[in-house]
């Protein structure tokens, strides 16, 4: 291989374009945004997991001081919505089916006035039987969460039956034959708990109707166009009549993919004929946001004497909650994680999502990653221990390598997994797996995809010779748009600071699938790079004409085209074009090429082939307090095959932050729910890692370039949250011999388990 080419802008540790406003306090976030005459909205939520609404009386609330509008399910015709099944209602109509379900909304002069008035709404409920356990919900005798499930509109890929809201299968070879030929067969069940995305800015929306059928919403969604089309569906107006703007967003991590407060703000603003702001309280975040689904994972794996996997049977059962939300997608993609990045001659893997009367869940960073990865990677260590093999060696005997065929029939390319394993193991000092009493090391590996979906980019040459890039994604903080701007600057021979980024306005920026799926920078940079090449061609044509020379004779340098000693600057080209040529603009769109797979192996799969797959290994060295059961992480190493690092600084930031988020799910984070009621709805009892709870995260960038990625980059944002629970569980087992099979790995479980 030749040495990597040096670039001027790409590959450099340059400061993010939106950084200065963020350190000086000048940056405006959605929660900072206000409008003149704006009212404040609050939501009344169901105290019951399943009940019939007998009566709602809002007359007293309407008379409370400062109240401007009260909305219930009966007062506005609002359509049902949902990403795969239309099972969400904005405000409950005849029934509530989970605790926290919105029943009414109030807009008032202040948040305080709205809160006071909520208490004056009288609701009479008649309780109905509810079901909270996924396995019970699958029983034919269980109460149906949606007795009308057959009449709910659903995407064709969804296969439903009563409370089961989806089913996906991957089948290869003959698992029974594989088990018969196995030296040992291992069967285990693992469980995970719901966790919150943990963004520090609560979900918020300000809505204003600008005509009887037109509205603008300022909010902190990750998905402009999905929000726009969902709101259009709910309110029964064309999508183009709804303008969605994200002034700034304080974290998302998947928790802001689907509607947050936008629909409530719009309904209240329509009723009040005034702009209305609705912001989720901290308690509402921890009791009524879209959590990562809890899951039950059953795994049966057969191996030969050398530890080579001969057969794997597995099922992930995802608790979708009372509305399916992302449950079907999470269960479906979960089957690929059940397989893991391993060669499987025989496999039968199933993913199902199930309705319960628990709170509906969403898509948190690597939505189906950590739960099945915790199961498969824990089991790999259990197999290694039983066979007397080093867990690293067991993985090396089974991992996918260049040219291997994965479980879905996809031929693997650019596979950096072995290098990740080697480097992570070396970095953590794998040779000494038990450095002292109650201290041990563990590792876990995994794979993930770079999601597809379209991106567009508009470029405009400005009269000062700089360039404006308009894109329809939201800069969540990942640095994706700084990275995409670096790619554009490289193409244009500009400095990064010559690129002005305009984003996140559904009216003015091009369509984009949105900030999700580890694909933002990947797709936006590819589209913008294409647009830059087009713009450059147009500029070159003008320059040649102006200098009276051939296009081929021009040299681009220092934001100018040169022909011998004569030059024309980008600013001069722009000025000429603006005054006499109609200006200079270019546009391009991008979608990642489809990847081949074996369709006969998959049934009802949402992501049957993985574009630009990434590979990752986490390794940790930790201590377990013998008396208290507390875990202290001494060291934590992330090795990830990122393809190429467009900006190493922000790439490291993704891996560092993702690992710590995953450590939270591993050790301390859990939305504790009993009979549908959240028991720890505050940040004192919902324990996210602080700076004291984690060490420095040591990052190793492995680069096996993706053919499709910009400069070879792969998607990077989601993967680092996948492996921490398994890596930590394996290290805990190495440290103290306790194998914890139910997340989170609390001190109680270590001491009592």
């Amino acid at each position, binding site marked *: 291989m030749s040495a990597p080419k040096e670039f001027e802008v790409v590959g450099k540790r340059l400061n993010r374009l939106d950084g200065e406003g963020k*350190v000086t306090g000048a940056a405006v976030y959605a929660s900072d945004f206000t409008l003149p005459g704006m009212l404040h909205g609050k939501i009344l939520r169901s105290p019951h997991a399943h009940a019939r609404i007998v009566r709602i009386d809002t007359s007293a609330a309407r008379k409370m001081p400062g109240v401007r509008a009260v909305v219930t399910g009966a007062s506005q015709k609002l359509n049902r919505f949902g990403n795969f099944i239309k099972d969400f209602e904005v405000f409950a109509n005849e029934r509530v089916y989970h605790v926290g379900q919105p029943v009414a909304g109030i807009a008032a002069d202040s948040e305080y006035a709205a809160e006071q008035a909520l208490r004056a709404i009288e609701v009479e409920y008649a309780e109905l039987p509810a079901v909270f356990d996924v396995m019970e919900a699958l029983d034919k005798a269980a109460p149906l969460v949606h007795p009308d499930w057959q009449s709910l509109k659903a995407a064709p890929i969804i296969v439903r039956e009563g409370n089961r809201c989806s089913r996906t299968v991957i089948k290869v070879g003959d698992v029974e034959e594989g088990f018969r030929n196995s030296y040992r067969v291992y069967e285990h069940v693992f469980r995970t708990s719901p966790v919150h995305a943990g963004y*520090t800015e609560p979900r918020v929306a300000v809505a204003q109707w600008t005509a009887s059928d037109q509205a603008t919403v300022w909010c902190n969604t990750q998905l402009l166009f999905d929000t726009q089309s969902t709101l259009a569906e709910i309110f029964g107006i064309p999508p183009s009549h709804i303008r969605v703007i994200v002034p700034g967003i*304080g974290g998302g991590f998947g928790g802001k993919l689907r509607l947050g407060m936008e629909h409530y703000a719009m309904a209240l603003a329509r009723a009040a004929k005034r702009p209305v702001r609705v912001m989720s309280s901290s308690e509402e975040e921890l009791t009524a946001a879209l959590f990562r689904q809890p899951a039950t994972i059953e795994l049966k794996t057969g191996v030969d004497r050398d530890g080579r996997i001969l057969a794997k049977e597995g099922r992930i059962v995802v608790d979708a909650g009372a509305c399916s939300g992302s449950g079907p997608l999470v269960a479906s993609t979960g089957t690929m994680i059940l397989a893991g990045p391993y060669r499987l001659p025989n496999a039968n893997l199933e993913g199902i999502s199930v309705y319960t009367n628990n709170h509906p869940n969403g898509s948190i960073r690597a939505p189906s990653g950590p739960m099945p990865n915790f199961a498969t990677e824990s089991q790999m260590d259990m197999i290694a221990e039983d066979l007397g093999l080093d867990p690293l060696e067991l993985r090396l005997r089974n991992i996918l390598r260049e040219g291997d065929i994965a479980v879905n029939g996809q031929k693997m390319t650019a596979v950096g997994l072995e290098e990740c394993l080697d480097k992570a193991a070396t970095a953590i000092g794998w040779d000494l797996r038990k450095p002292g009493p109650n201290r041990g090391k563990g590792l876990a590996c995994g794979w993930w995809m770079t999601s597809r979906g379209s991106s567009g980019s508009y470029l405009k040459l400005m009269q000062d010779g700089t360039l404006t890039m308009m894109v329809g994604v939201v800069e969540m*903080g990942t640095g994706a748009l700084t990275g995409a701007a670096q790619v554009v600057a490289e193409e244009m021979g500009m400095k990064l600071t010559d690129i002005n980024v305009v984003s996140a306005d559904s009216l003015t920026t091009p369509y984009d699938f949105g900030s999700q799926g580890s694909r933002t920078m990947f797709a936006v940079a590819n589209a913008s790079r294409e647009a830059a090449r087009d713009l450059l061609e147009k500029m070159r044509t003008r320059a040649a004409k102006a200098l009276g020379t051939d296009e081929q004779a021009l040299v681009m340098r220092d934001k100018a085209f040169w022909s011998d000693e004569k030059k024309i600057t980008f600013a001069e080209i722009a000025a000429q074009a603006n005054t006499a040529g109609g200006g200079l603009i270019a546009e391009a769109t991008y979608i990642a090429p489809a990847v081949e797979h074996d369709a006969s192996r998959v049934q009802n799969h949402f992501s049957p082939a993985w574009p630009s797959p990434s590979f990752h290994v986490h390794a940790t060295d930790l201590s377990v307090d013998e008396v208290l059961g507390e875990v202290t992480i001494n060291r934590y190493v992330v090795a990830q095959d990122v393809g190429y690092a467009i900006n190493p*600084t922000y790439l*490291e930031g993704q891996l560092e*932050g993702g690992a710590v988020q995953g450590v939270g799910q591993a050790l301390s984070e859990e939305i504790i729910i009993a009979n549908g009621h959240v028991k720890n709805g505050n940040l004192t009892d919902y324990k*996210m890692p*602080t700076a004291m709870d984690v060490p420095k995260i040591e990052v190793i960038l492995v680069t096996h370039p993706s053919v499709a990625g910009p400069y070879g980059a792969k998607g990077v944002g989601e993967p680092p949250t996948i492996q921490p629970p398994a890596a930590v569980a394996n290290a805990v087992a190495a440290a103290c011999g306790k194998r914890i099979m139910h997340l989170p790995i609390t001190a109680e479980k270590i001491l009592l388990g």
Partner: protein
Amino acid sequence: MTTMHELNLTVNGEEWQLAVKGAETLLEVLRKHLTLTGAKSNCLEGECGVCAVLVNGRVVNSCILIAAQCNGAQITTVEGLASGETMHALQTAFLNRGAVQCGYCIPGMIMTAAGYLKENPAPTEEEIREGLCGTLCRCTGYTKIVEAVQEAAQTMGAK
């Protein structure tokens, strides 16, 4: 009728005379009365630290401090940290070290660090982690934030 309290404050060097309600917090006064939105709003129970400001030089979660208790106090928010056009060493270090992602916790994190470095100008990595542990950041995993505070402490110490 709500009782109003007279409140005299110096915020980022500017003097203010305000009338506030008894239950209003310092965060509400900063964000609503003075439209200084640098201090952020999240948990409103003193757990997450995104609202941190300096009150008479000490780090305070402004979301749980009753504004009326601050009469006569000197308040510094992230908007008042720079000296004229020159950013504070912490702001520069956070920017250059890549310690900023979504940025929502960053005003609170920087003010927490500013207050802590007054008490302990040359902290170890462990001390920095302890000093910052009242402010949550979900994006960064803290690695680059800790490095930024170390760098800023060195810059400030060298002056």
